[in-house]
């Protein structure tokens, strides 16, 4: 290193500056990604620090080498999932980049080195490195069909990422791609970035071009994703060979869950606990810290009260109020996030029961589970298990035909049941679809007749048949096979879903199957509401119950059989004056608004004086005394200390009647 000393030093300085610049912007990016940090980013930051350490070590820049060494250890533990990412860690990264920058400047201007508190920083890094994150159970790498060569060429980090992908119940695919030698780097990078949008490329192994012509080169990628194989192929434009490497693609968690399941027992878990990613708790802790800061400013403001000018005091008070408001919403959002769990948590239970049921009924069933990562409030996920199981039982028992019948109809002998969860706006939708015979009004009608649910001459079309399925007293299942029902009908399923402020609808195609669609608000703790005024008071109507709102003149309100109705697209919607429902004062007005609301298949138009706005509300219980008042779900504060009632559309309709009932009476 004698002759090249000066040159090497210069080269080092300029490369170190570049590395630190990249590092700095990557740490900013890391901070902005919050809790859902992309593993590639953490690995990139690790590599940058790793390169810096290697260089500094070779050239004998001991301080840079030591600091980056400690940092590298910490980042290695972070990328291997051994320590959690949190605010403190990001702060240490920022401070480290700062200090490293100063140490690089100090190569030319040694006095700058005095500005760096190396022992302090090293201590903070050590503390973070020794923090522990709870182990997350088996990686399950033995479930993967990997040849020896590929397994050996995985670095420790890649092996860890493979395990993480398995733990998240992603499918692992082997993707083989062949490229022309001249352009393989661009094309492979393009393919990798497409794949990374909906999964993670875990490793990239070059291989001999299978064509053997020597003109090209092949790559074998290991890829973890929630997407289906066909979807991966489609994204790659059809030139890739994609094959699955996981031996048990469906219900991978089943084995881990262990105990045999008794079908008689409710599938709901008994646990009321939520396992929380430490990062989410850290987020709450941070916000609490920020709230304390605001409290301190409030204290100092009150101590100085009367000392500073009124205008400055007022501005300061305003600032604190704004900050408090913002931090409290952050806190609220964080706590709600903690309540969220992936729907996939109940998938494995459902999968086990499906296998058991299929065996009992002698039917071959292929269960497809999609969207397991979709998050929903923990409480709702638990409440959903029984209704979902009920719908799946119905699908297998009544929907899917016996194998012979299916083959005769030109279908595959195995019936398919698909569970698909996805987010749609503020709701989570869960579709349960089967490819069975569909709902046949001709099979429903005699049953309904026997149960006295319809008149002998009443004809039954598909919508009426679906309505009948949900009518109390319809359930015939127990008599048919003992598998579905258990004395519980779809009416109870609908009731359960409505209790969760959700809706259930059914689509069916004779001969090709049915879909039961459950829509739920993501959480019950916060919901979007329409604020309206009626008489002297304001009310909040949950948006999940609102179909539309329109402005009408008083002369458009008609009276049919003693009841006020509004003709909406040739359909009579029964009206309810909200001020009457809650017995408050109201004056005659020249114009009204109707908020058309729905609960299940039942509709009612709420007559109000004005629409105020849409806003997010938090429902609070109003205490036992008012809890039993029909039509009220609770109370909420809508700012400026105004507390208003939240309307419960379901129980209002129970109390005052609905379109469905009105229509049947008329027909």
């Amino acid at each position, binding site marked *: 290193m004698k002759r090249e000393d000066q040159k090497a030093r210069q080269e080092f300085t300029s490369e170190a500056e570049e590395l630190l610049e990249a590092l700095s912007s990557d740490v900013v990016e890391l901070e902005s990604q919050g809790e859902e940090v992309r593993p590639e980013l953490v690995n990139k930051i690790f590599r940058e620090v790793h390169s810096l350490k290697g260089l500094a070590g070779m050239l004998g820049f001991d301080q840079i080498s030591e600091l980056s060494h400690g940092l590298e250890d910490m980042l290695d533990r972070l990328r291997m999932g051994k320590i959690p990412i949190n605010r403190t860690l990001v702060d240490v990264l920022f401070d480290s980049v700062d200090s490293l920058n100063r140490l690089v400047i100090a190569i030319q201007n040694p006095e700058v080195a005095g500005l760096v508190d190396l022992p302090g920083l090293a201590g903070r890094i050590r503390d973070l490195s020794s923090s522990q994150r709870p182990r997350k159970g088996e990686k399950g790498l033995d479930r993967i069909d990997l040849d020896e060569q590929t397994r050996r060429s995985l670095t420790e980090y890649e092996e860890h990422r493979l395990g993480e992908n398995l733990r998240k119940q992603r499918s692992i695919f082997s993707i083989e791609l062949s490229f022309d030698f001249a352009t393989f780097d661009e094309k492979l990078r393009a393919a990798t970035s497409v794949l990374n949008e909906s999964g993670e490329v875990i490793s990239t*192994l070059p291989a001999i071009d299978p064509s053997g012509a020597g003109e090209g080169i092949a790559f074998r990628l290991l890829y973890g994703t929630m997407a289906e194989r066909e979807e991966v192929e489609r994204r790659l434009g059809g030139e890739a060979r994609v094959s699955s490497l996981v031996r048990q693609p469906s219900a991978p968690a089943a084995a881990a869950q262990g105990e045999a399941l008794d079908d008689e027992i409710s599938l709901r878990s008994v646990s009321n606990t939520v396992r929380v990613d430490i990062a989410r708790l850290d987020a709450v802790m941070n916000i609490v810290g920020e709230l304390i800061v605001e409290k301190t400013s409030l204290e100092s403001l009150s101590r100085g009260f009367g000392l500073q000018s009124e205008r400055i005091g007022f501005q300061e008070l305003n600032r604190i109020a704004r900050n408090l408001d913002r931090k409290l919403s952050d806190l609220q959002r964080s706590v709600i996030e903690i309540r969220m769990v992936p729907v996939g948590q109940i998938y494995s239970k459902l999968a086990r029961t499906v296998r058991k049921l299929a065996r009992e009924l002698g039917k071959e069933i292929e269960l497809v589970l999609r969207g397991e990562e979709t998050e929903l409030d923990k409480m709702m996920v638990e409440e959903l298990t029984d209704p979902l199981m009920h719908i799946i039982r119905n699908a297998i028992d009544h929907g899917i035909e016996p194998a012979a019948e299916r083959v005769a109809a030109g279908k595959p002998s195995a019936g398919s049941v698909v569970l698909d969860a996805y987010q749609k706006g503020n709701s989570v939708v869960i579709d349960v679809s089967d490819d069975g015979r569909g709902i046949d009004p001709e099979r429903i009608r005699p049953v309904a007749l026997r149960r006295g649910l319809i008149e002998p001459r009443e004809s039954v079309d598909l919508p009426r048949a679906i309505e009948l399925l949900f009518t109390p007293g319809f359930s015939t299942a127990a008599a048919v096979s003992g598998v579905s029902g258990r004395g519980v009908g779809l009416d109870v399923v609908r009731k359960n879903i409505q209790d969760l402020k959700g809706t259930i609808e059914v689509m069916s195609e004779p001969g090709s199957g049915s879909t039961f669609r459950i829509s739920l608000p993501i959480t019950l703790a916060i919901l979007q509401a329409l604020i309206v005024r009626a008489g002297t008071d304001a009310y909040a109507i949950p948006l999940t119950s609102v179909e539309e709102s329109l402005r009408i003149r008083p002369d458009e309100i008609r009276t049919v059989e003693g009841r006020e109705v509004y003709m909406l697209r040739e359909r009579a919607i029964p009206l309810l004056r909200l001020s009457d429902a809650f017995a408050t004062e109201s004056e005659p007005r020249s114009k009204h608004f109707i908020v058309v609301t729905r609960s299940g298949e039942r509709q009612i138009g709420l007559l109000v004086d004005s629409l105020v706005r849409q806003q997010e509300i938090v429902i609070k219980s109003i205490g036992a005394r008012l809890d039993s008042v029909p039509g009220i779900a609770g109370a909420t504060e809508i700012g400026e200390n105004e507390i208003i009632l939240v309307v419960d559309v379901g129980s209002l309709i129970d109390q005052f009647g609905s379109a469905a009932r009105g229509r049947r009476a008329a027909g």
Partner: protein
Amino acid sequence: MKVLVVEDSPSMLSMLSNIIESDSDGLALEIVEASSGFEALKILPHHRFDAVVTDINMPDINGLELVSFLKSHPTYREIPVLVVSTEGSAEDRRRAEALGAEEYLVKPFEPVDLVEKLRRLLGG
């Protein structure tokens, strides 16, 4: 004799090349530099190399993947490989050896150690 040096850090790459060039008197080595695994793959068919020196931690494809490719390739499998990486990754070292890498050198190293290992690979 020709040596391919693969390293993504430019100053580390030039440092490695300098050491090999200036300290390996008597070996008359010609050095070809690749600043990534991809570049190494592109360069390989155009030369007959007597040895490959590679880093492990690199973007796109890493050193182990490069070694795996070389050691399973009918044309390149005989080329001896020296893996140069930093300490702390004993596991990666084990893997490099399992894949067939002949030598392993830990950064930071003394120039003489690099030359010594390379000399051994080249049978000199």
